């Protein structure tokens, strides 16, 4: 039973996608390649996948019946939803910021989407919810770029403000009539290569590929990295730093809003506090995925890997019956450990 399912579904998707760390991969052969230099040439996005496989193997050792395709798909589905919620966070972190308004952007967009389906129709409500996310991001970005406030303070204030808006505007907190097309792109079962999986899994992977292409291969994406790595350098090179920052936060907000709709579609429920757990876990997924919290480094492929690690941790926590409070504790510990590990490598 243990050899039935080597985790083939997540790894091809990551290896076929573009290398996220364009800088480190080709350092040229100088002398004999040592073990360390070979390790150094491995793209950062690979490490979280290695960590995931190790955790998966540990899970298999504890409970051999965990090593099944269904269990893997279950973990991957949980991970991809977390990853979709963390894509926006990735973009904020790359530009040396952070978006702590992700939780209530998720909640607001989900509730607004459900409330607007009646008057605007599903597609209109979908567009309106994404636009709301982009507007939230615009305000975040404008305050951060133009007024120079720190991203943490700005976005956490925005998060609080949004919660107030949610409580005022949506005094009903449970809405369960989910439009069909949202179910079709999220919880509907698809059969890919003979494996049955919810539609959200290929959707999330497709979104990952698109975003990674934008980040790696467009002028906007590379400008975002320059701004994140050295803002003053970007400014003195004549890059429109403020515009790049603001559009970055707008994309971040729109992606969080998209995550809200995906969560509604998959879990078929929405509430004012539905995004709360994504505050810590979105940052954790980004950081475990190899992004530098100081900016200038990160990839959405890595974020998917980070989300897989966290999802597997959640699975193990459930299997070992530790309870969800322990899960938060472990997430916090993972963030601290990963940040200190990557911080060391940065200093070396």
């Amino acid at each position, binding site marked *: 039973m243990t050899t039935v399912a080597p985790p083939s579904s997540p790894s091809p998707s990551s290896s076929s996608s573009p290398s996220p760390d364009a800088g480190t991969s080709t*350092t040229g052969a100088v002398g004999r390649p040592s073990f360390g230099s070979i390790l150094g040439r491995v793209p950062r996005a690979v490490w979280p996948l290695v960590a995931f496989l190790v955790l998966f193997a540990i899970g298999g050792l504890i409970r051999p019946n965990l090593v099944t395709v269904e269990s893997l798909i279950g973990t991957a589905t949980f991970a991809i939803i977390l990853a979709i919620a963390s894509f926006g966070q990735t973009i904020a972190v790359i530009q040396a910021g952070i978006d702590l308004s992700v939780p209530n952007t998720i909640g607001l967009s989900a509730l607004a989407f459900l409330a607007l389906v009646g008057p605007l129709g599903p597609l209109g409500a979908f567009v309106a919810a994404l636009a709301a996310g982009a507007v939230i991001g615009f305000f975040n970005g404008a305050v951060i770029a133009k007024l120079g406030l720190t991203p943490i303070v700005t976005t956490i204030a925005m998060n609080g403000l949004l919660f107030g808006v949610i409580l005022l505007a949506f005094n009903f907190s449970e809405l369960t009539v989910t439009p069909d097309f949202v179910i079709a792109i999220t919880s509907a079962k698809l059969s890919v290569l003979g494996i049955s999986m919810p539609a959200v899994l290929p959707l999330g992977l497709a979104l990952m590929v698109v975003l990674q292409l934008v980040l790696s291969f*467009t*002028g906007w994406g590379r400008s975002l990295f*320059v701004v994140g790595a050295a803002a003053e350098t970007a400014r*003195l*090179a*004549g890059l429109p730093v403020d515009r790049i920052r603001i559009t970055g936060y707008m994309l971040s907000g729109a992606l969080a809003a998209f995550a809200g709709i995906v969560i509604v579609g998959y879990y078929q429920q929405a509430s004012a506090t539905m995004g709360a757990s994504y505050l810590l876990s979105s940052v954790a997924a980004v950081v475990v995925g190899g992004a530098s919290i100081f900016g200038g480094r990160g990839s959405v492929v890595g974020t998917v890997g980070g989300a897989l690690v966290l999802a597997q941790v959640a699975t193990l926590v459930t299997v070992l019956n530790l309870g969800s409070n322990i899960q938060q504790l472990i997430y916090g510990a993972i963030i601290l450990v990963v940040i200190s590990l990557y911080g060391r490598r940065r200093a070396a």
Partner: protein
Amino acid sequence: MSTPTPAPPIATGASTASASAPQTAPPDARPAAPPADALLVATDLVKSYGPVKAVQGVTFHCNPGEVLALVGENGAGKSTVAKMLAGAVTPTSGTIIVGGEPLASGSVKQSRLSGVRCAFQELALVPDWTVAENLSLPDGAPLRGFSQKKSVAAASALLSAFDLPHIDPRAAVGTLSLADRQLVEIARALAGKPRLLILDEASSALTPPGVQWLFTRIRELTAAGGSVIYVSHRLGEIAEIADRGTVLRDGQVAGEFVRGGWTDDELISLMAGREAERFFPDPPERTTDAVALSVTELRSEGLDGVSLSLGAGEILGIGGLQGHGQAELLRALFGAAPAVADEWTIAGRRIKGTTPVRSVRHGLGYVPEDRKREGLALEMSVGENLLAPWLKAYQLGGRPRLAMERGWIDGILSALSVRTRGSNELAGSLSGGNQQKLVFGRWMDRSRTVILLHDPTRGIDVRAKQELYGAIVDLAKQGVGILWFSTEVEELVHVCHRVVVLYQGKVADELTGGRLTADAIVGAAVGSTGSISLTTDEEDLR
């Protein structure tokens, strides 16, 4: 820092020093046998970073009361050696003996206790702290309880003892000019009354009076039996202050010299490993009278109405002492700082004001002061750093763009002889001179009208300087107007068509033709009163 306790750390060094008077030509010029009373003996120092050997087997010694120069190009290993002596870097192998006892390596604190102090090239001050707080930092004063009042009093006493009355101990270090910050850094090292003082490019931002101030301090220290290791590129300074010297090249000792026994050309060829050509190129013949940039009564913070005009293909030098508006002028012209002017044209087109984005669109390029913070994204690749100004949101970026621009990138890298393993290497792993070439190179062959240079040759080696001079002259030949602020007077004299000297935010003088001499620039830089006396007669002017 703590002035109430006059501990005599120099006395311990002097006890072994039989002759503490400054010697001019020590007889033991051969590297093989350090004298028994040597203050510092470094033997076979090796430092490798992974496969890269920054320093491979460096041996030298320093006698009490002596100034030992450590010279070499950037990347030759000088800074690494200096950091090993200071305890900031642990040697991979080799020994360092200070005053007869091995130096506990890898600990700045241990080095300090052995009487070794270092003023680092990258200023190791806390920008948000005041001068007084920074000066009290090395003593671990914060651990013993800290008093603003006492530290300010101690700092003013120290600054006046070191003849630096113009620095306010209550000012945050970040608000000081680069030169003043460097003076504070040196003062902090001196405050520890070191037996051995390491000055790592400590004069790179200093003006001529600042350098004279530094030399006075060095002579005080050596007269008391202390020793100085002086790391510098500036041969004029080495000729004046160094008793002996060690030349490093590619992490090894390339040669040694004693006071008076060398010429600039010999030293340059030792450093570069080849016969040096003529140091400065001539500015090219001007072929057009077109005006590339003109500004009338430019006002900004630190600028009090500057008018100047720069022709196409002209190299216009900006001279003056640090902090008289040169940096502000370049920033204002590029739009990096807000500024207004009565009249302002770029390539004949009138503009009201500008921002960096608009300046680049109008054909300006800017090489800023601090290449690590303002010039480069160190964690990104060489190619992407070159391309940074030319990224457009809706166009390709990253690898496809690099492939498209392959020809341009390779052209820049080879035209400037950038020593890199390719355009995918991280910019942060290049040496300082090669990093500077990237900041400069991104504006080459991009149909620029004007390029603003903020002291691009500061702290880079001789060979890199010559390559930059060549590139600047080539750009001028293509009709680009070059506005070049330099702290090296000889660059202004030899490579510029015309030099404008700023004093207190205004144009003090404009020098061309026969009036363009080093003395005239320095004279104008100190203002008409001439209150600061200078000893420039020793400088080797070509």
